[in-house]
C-alpha cells in the first residue's frame, strides 16, 4: 500500500538547506536507491570562499556522486548536482544550468530562492521542492514559486530541524503538501523512484 499519490511525471527534485541540514542531506544521499533516476538539484548555503571540499564531503556518503555543474551544463537523469560556492545557480528552459555572480539574495550566494524559483518556472507541475533545516528565510519564496506553478512542496518537520526558521518560513508563506522527517523523505524518494522502472 503506497502512502503517497506518485507517478513518473516528475522531471526533477530540488532541495534547499542551510544551517543544520548537512546531516539530513547526507542521510538522504546515502539512503536513496543507487539507480535513482530523477535529477536531484541541491542548493545549500555554504562558505563563500571555500571552493573545494564540500562536494567531496557530500560525495563520500552519497550513493551517487555529487557534482557542481558548469555554466550551461545539461541536466541529466540519475545525477546529483550542488550549487557551486559564490555563484547563483538557475535552471533554464531547455533543461540546463546557468550560473551567475549577481548580488547576494537573502545574504546568500548561492541563494535557494533563485534555484527553487527558476526550477519552478521550468518544471512547473513536474517538480518536487524540498526545504530542510536552516536559520534564515531563504527558500521560502522559492517554495511559494514552486507551489504557484503546480509543483509539490515538502519541508522537513520543524520539530526535527536543528534550526527551524527556514521550513517554518515556507509554511507561513505557501501551501506545503507534506511535512516530513528525514526518514520519511527517504522512503518517499525511494517510493517515487519505483515508478520509474
Amino acid at each position: 500500500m503506497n502512502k503517497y499519490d506518485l507517478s513518473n511525471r516528475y522531471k526533477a527534485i530540488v532541495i534547499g538547506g542551510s544551517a543544520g541540514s548537512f546531516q539530513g542531506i547526507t542521510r538522504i544521499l546515502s539512503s536513496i536507491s543507487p539507480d535513482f533516476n530523477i535529477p536531484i538539484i541541491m542548493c545549500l548555503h555554504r562558505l563563500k570562499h571555500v571552493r573545494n571540499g564540500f562536494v567531496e564531503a557530500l560525495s563520500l556518503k552519497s550513493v551517487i556522486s555529487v557534482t557542481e555543474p558548469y555554466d550551461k551544463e545539461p541536466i541529466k537523469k540519475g545525477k546529483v548536482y550542488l550549487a557551486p560556492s559564490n555563484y547563483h545557480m538557475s535552471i533554464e528552459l531547455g533543461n540546463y544550468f546557468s550560473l551567475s555572480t549577481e548580488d547576494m539574495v537573502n545574504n546568500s550566494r548561492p541563494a535557494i530562492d533563485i534555484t527553487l524559483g527558476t526550477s519552478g518556472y521550468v518544471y512547473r507541475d513536474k517538480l518536487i521542492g524540498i526545504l530542510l533545516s536552516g536559520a534564515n528565510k531563504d527558500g521560502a519564496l522559492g517554495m511559494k514559486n514552486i507551489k504557484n506553478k503546480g509543483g509539490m512542496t515538502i519541508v522537513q518537520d520543524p520539530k526535527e530541524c536543528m534550526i527551524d526558521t527556514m521550513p517554518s518560513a515556507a509554511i507561513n508563506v505557501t501551501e506545503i503538501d507534506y511535512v516530513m522527517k528525514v526518514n520519511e523523505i527517504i522512503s518517499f524518494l525511494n517510493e517515487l523512484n519505483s515508478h520509474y522502472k
Partner: protein
Amino acid sequence: MADIEIADIKKIAEVVKRKYNYDFTNYAMSSFKRRIQRILDYFKISSVDALIKRLSDDASFFEEFLVEITVNVTEMFRDPSFWRVLRDDIIPAIMLNHDKIRIWHAGCSSGEEVFSMAIMLRELGVLQNSQLIATDLDKEILKRAKSGKYSLKNMELNEKNYIRFQGNSSLKDYYSEQKGVAVMDPSLVENVSFREHDLVKGEVFNKFDLVLCRNVMIYFNQSLQNEVLKKFHESLFKFGYLIIGSKESLIWCDIANKFIVVNNEEKIYKKFKD
C-alpha cells in the same frame, strides 16, 4: 507579482537593439529576467510596457538602464588560487619568450580584476613591461573602474582574498582612505587603456598574449558564447592564454578543439591552432 514573460524580454531586447544598437537578445534568460525585474523595482516602473515606452522615448534613461542591466558584482583576487597560478606559472611562461606582455580584460566591469592584475604584475616587477587593455560595454562603469574607488566594506573582502593570494605586501599599501572610500594608487593603472567595447557587436581590435574574461560569458546563451569565443581565439597570438571563470567551460563550444587545457581547476586554456 506576475512573471515577466519571455515575449516581454524579447520586446525589450528588440527596442534596445533598434534604438541603441546594443544586442541583448542572446543573453542567458533567467539572469536577464531578474535584471529586468530589478530595473522595474529600482526605477519604480509599473510594467514592462511602461519600461519599453520609457526606453523608446528617453535616451538619457537608457544610460541608467545600461548600468543596471549588466551585472557588476566582482571582487579583487576572486579565487586566490587562480591568481597564484597566474603569478607562479602563467606570467613567467609568457615572459620567457616576450619582453612585453599584452593583456586584455574583456568585460572589466568596475575594474577589480584590472587592479588585481596590476598589483600582481608590480609585485613580479613586470608592470612596466605590460600593456593592459580593459574593456566594457558600459562607459559609466568604465569611469568607475578608472577612478579606482571602492567601498571600504568591499575592501575587507578584497583584503581577505589578497591574503589568500599570498601577495608580498598588504593590500593597504595599494590604496588610501579618502572620505570613507578606498582610492587605489593611480600609478597602478597609468598605463592601462580603458575602452568602450561590446563583446557582442564589437570587432576584434588587437592581438594579446593573455585574454581574461571571467564570469562574463555566463550571462550569454550558448550560441553567443560561441561567437564571443571565436573573437577571443582571433584576438590571441598563437600559444596565447585564454582564462575564463572557475565554473565556465569550453567543453560545449565549437572552438574547444583549437585550445588545450593548461589548468582545468583554474580554467586556463592555451590557443594552439589558428
